[in-house]
């Protein structure tokens, strides 16, 4: 059953499809997403993902290309803790759900906001001890993004 969010995603997808043509730097949104997600420490896969025991597996609502972020919305079938408590978080993201950035995300969502919208950019980190980077302080230590080809 299609709901408002899916309708909105379709129109976003049509826009995005139009923008799948390479930009001035010759980079598609998907390529930009992959580069930025890897730069912040995510593992990115195309098609099939890793099989990691104990991983929390979620479905992302959107991806943001300019920051390599995945956008997760709380819903009955997407509890918040799934992407928070486990050591490893695996998230499935359809390629045609990758938006350029925050502006497009909020324009697409409009006033229809979930109870919790989490924009996640890489694994949990802290530099509070002697300014040295530590990963996995509270949130997942590893983030794996599995890109699913557009339907």
């Amino acid at each position, binding site marked *: 059953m299609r709901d408002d969010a899916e309708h909105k995603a379709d129109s976003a997808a049509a826009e995005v499809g139009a923008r799948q043509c390479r930009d001035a730097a010759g980079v598609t949104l998907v390529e930009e997403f992959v580069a930025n997600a890897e730069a912040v420490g995510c593992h990115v896969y195309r098609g099939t993902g890793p099989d990691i025991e104990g991983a929390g597996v979620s479905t992302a609502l959107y991806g943001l290309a300019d920051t390599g972020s995945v956008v997760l919305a709380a819903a009955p079938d997407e509890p918040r803790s799934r992407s928070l408590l486990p050591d490893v978080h695996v998230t499935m993201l359809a390629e045609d759900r990758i938006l350029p950035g925050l502006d497009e995300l909020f324009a697409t969502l409009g006033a229809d906001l979930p109870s*919790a919208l*989490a924009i996640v*950019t890489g694994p949990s980190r802290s530099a509070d001890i002697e300014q040295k980077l530590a990963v996995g302080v509270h949130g997942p230590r590893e983030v794996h993004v599995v890109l699913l080809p557009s339907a």
Partner: protein
Amino acid sequence: MAELAQPPRRFREIARVKLADAHIQTALDDSTDRLRTHRLHAWSDLPEVQELRQRAHEIRMSVIDDLDGHVERFTAALSARGGNVYFARTAEEASEYVANVCRRRGAKLAAKSKSMVSEEIGLNQALEAVGTQAIETDLGEYILQLAGEHPVHIVAPAIEKTAEDVAELLSAVRGKRIPPHLEELTNAARTQLRETFLNADVGITGVNFAVSETGSICLCTNEGNGRLVSSIPPVHVAIMGMERLVPTTADLAVLLKLLARSGTGQKLTVYTTLLTGPRRAGETDGPEELHVVILDNGRTNLLRGRYREMLACIRCGACLNVCPVYRKTGGAAYSDVYSGPMGAVLLPLLVGLQHAPSLPHASSLCGACTEACPVKIPLHELLLDLRRDLVAEGVASWAERVSFWLWSWAWSRPFGYRASTALARLGQPLAGLVGPGRAWARVRALPRLGRRYRDRR
């Protein structure tokens, strides 16, 4: 608010202590250098950064110009979603509200994610009084809580602590020896605080931004503790200074693009979470109750006056990282909550100049802060204005006012200038013994007064 008041000589006394500590000096140099460099890279990687700064300034000022309207809209929007909004005029009202929520729920344990406003109002003590233990979950704040100390930097609260310090604190709480290695310290903190997240009766967070149109609050963390604290416990209390509002999510995007880049150099913090009301029907986690406490605590006083731009501050810490004075003293010299240039401006405005008289002068007015501020607050100009207010409000000392009066009387006429400087030249041997001359001469050679330039021409 009385807790925030600063005794007059505090800045200089604490500065002396920090200056004498070589480890703290190195920590301050290294951490501020690093954060500043990261911000500079992030800004230079963003071609539209100057336009964004200007837009961000305008967005913040538009809210300040209609703050009452935005508070109303926010309250209506969030209430429609089932959230509770409480407007607290004073620190006491805010603490009391939160304490009552905890008492009503029989809360024994509260998990806290970073909130500077909660430090401003002394929330943790108020909760203890009703039998609720509040544990800080931000790693740096947790370390400081274990040590019984206060944060000294907006973004990097435990700058001054070594790995050995942290190991000692964590070992005590875990009941076994933890070596001072980053990975093991991190695991110990993660394991320890995991219990807090899972067992807390109430989660308490700050708010980075609130969106008036949608009734949403936005939390930005790198650790994930903000999300955990607002997802697992059955009750979520969020406390915000009333100036944290932005009109729409489109405006929020502008500020989010600047916040992390300016604070740490990241494009976004790892977790940027937008919360709109408590859990909805069918959801299996998320809070049943959401309370947003909007705090005034003196901010209304700033709304119409010369200092209203200070309310635009987004607490990114960029000004701390470029301040040559903060670099030497660290945050404790300013106060236990706000420090650096933003603290030097905000604190006297919140508590009154007579309760923080040295802060406007705890600056060489170099202007680096104004350059670094993502929302273009003219910080060094506001410090200059505060110095004027110190004199106008009679807080500046009688001796100082008389000295400047005498000086201006003499130096507004060539004869007076010649006579006073001739006297000064005669009195040179004594100059290093009293007043400003003494303060100078203890650490620097005094300049020698010879024949004036005008007499040599």
